[in-house]
């Protein structure tokens, strides 16, 4: 069965109150836990600058943290925030069985990357698992058990959406895009070790097909993890699913009401055919709302985009790329 989906995203935020307002009131997530330990992953000092005359916000251990989930997710949480700055801490991918974890751990070691075992409780509500450092220096965690807390509409005669849906009302976190100095190497790892497949690739040209971007899936969505050429260990964005174009537009309205900085959109991607808005959270981490796409599967043939058509592949309607979209990561 293997990897099923992106289960959680763990990011740093600079101001927890502002982050909670964004992810809860603007995006519509529910806070399921606050200030629970977020594990050994916290590496950096959380000292911050303060305005003159104000008490400087000095590091205290442990940092403020929060666990959140979207209304249509049944697992305990899908987003972990820690007040330690900006950028990605790790991504959690949920696997079908404990046997998968063993197999992936062995294959990852054979590939030559660092793996460690994580034990139940190390991540709030998450069972035993395997932590892997990708060739791109990103940390991913594989697990197969996490506390089941149910969706907001339940499993008995459910309504199509919760009556008190807030803000953009995102039903679930969909995928993440990270950057890597050598996207082909990390793609090979995801394919050989974790059985992901590329739905689409951006290549230099047909004669000299160097991979500059890859959109990888493990289930039947267009992508669960995408990797584009850039700095190792960085996050380009993580995305919230939206049902359709109307919900993308409505999310855009909410972003205007809440003064959310927009990067690009609303528009359509050539790659994945998805409909999208890119925007920034209050710490500067890029988010996306993503709708549409298509269905993949084990026999899905990989689609290629050549570098000369990449602007169209990424922003199909305008066919133009702003400088910051490819360069700005956290």
């Amino acid at each position, binding site marked *: 069965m293997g990897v099923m989906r992106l289960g959680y995203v763990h990011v740093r935020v*600079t101001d927890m109150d502002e982050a909670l307002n964004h992810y809860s009131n603007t995006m519509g997530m529910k806070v399921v836990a606050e200030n629970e330990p977020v594990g050994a992953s916290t590496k950096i000092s*959380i000292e911050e*600058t303060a305005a003159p005359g104000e008490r400087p916000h000095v590091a205290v251990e442990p940092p403020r943290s929060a666990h959140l989930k979207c209304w249509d997710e049944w697992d305990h949480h899908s987003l972990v925030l820690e007040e330690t700055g900006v950028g990605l801490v790790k991504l959690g991918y949920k696997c079908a069985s404990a046997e998968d974890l063993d197999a992936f751990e062995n294959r990852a070691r054979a590939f030559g990357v660092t793996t460690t075992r994580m034990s139940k409780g190390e991540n709030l509500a998450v069972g035993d698992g395997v932590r892997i450092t990708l060739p791109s220096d990103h940390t991913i965690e594989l697990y197969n058990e996490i506390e089941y807390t149910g969706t907001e509409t339940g499993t008995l005669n459910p309504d199509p959406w919760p009556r008190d849906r807030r803000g953009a009302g995102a039903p679930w976190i969909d995928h993440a895009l990270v950057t890597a100095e050598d996207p082909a190497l990390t793609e090979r790892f995801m394919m050989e070790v974790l059985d992901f497949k590329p739905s689409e690739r951006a290549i230099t040209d047909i004669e000299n097909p160097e991979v500059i971007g890859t959109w990888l899936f493990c289930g039947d969505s267009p992508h669960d993890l995408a990797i584009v050429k850039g700095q190792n260990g960085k996050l380009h964005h993580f995305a919230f699913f939206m049902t359709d174009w109307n919900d993308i537009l409505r999310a855009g309205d909410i972003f205007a009401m809440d003064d959310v900085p927009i990067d690009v959109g609303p528009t359509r991607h050539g790659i994945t055919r998805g409909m999208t808005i890119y925007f*920034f959270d209050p710490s500067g981490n890029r988010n996306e709302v993503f709708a549409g796409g298509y269905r993949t599967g084990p026999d899905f043939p990989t689609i290629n985009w050549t570098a000369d058509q990449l602007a169209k592949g990424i922003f199909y309607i305008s066919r133009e790329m702003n400088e*910051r979209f490819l360069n700005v*990561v956290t």
Partner: protein
Amino acid sequence: MLTVTVRPGDVSVCAREGETILDAFLRSGFAYRYACRRGGCVECKVQLVSGEVVYNKRIAKAIFPDEERERGVCLSCRAVPVTDVVIELQEGDEPKCVSPLMAEVAKAELARVRARAAGASPVSAPGQRQQA
């Protein structure tokens, strides 16, 4: 009202109470290199040539260390001027007028502010009759 002057090009705009350097510049129809506008991506770091700024929002030290501030680096999407300021953009960057209409409005605002500061009679804004 305070003024923000951006080099190269010496483009001056007004900064309103509590407004950041970048916000003042964007509101005035101009842009330079920026992205997240929330202090996280550090695309809009510039050099503070003269003047003073304050930071009213938290900024992670990991991305904007003290030693950078001491060298006069300024994170312009979070920096609020408390005096007139002059900033120098990163090498290769320059101010771009992205909205001539907003730039006209901002230019008139700046002219009024400067006239008031000089004690002269105010210059009319577009569409307004000149005050005697």
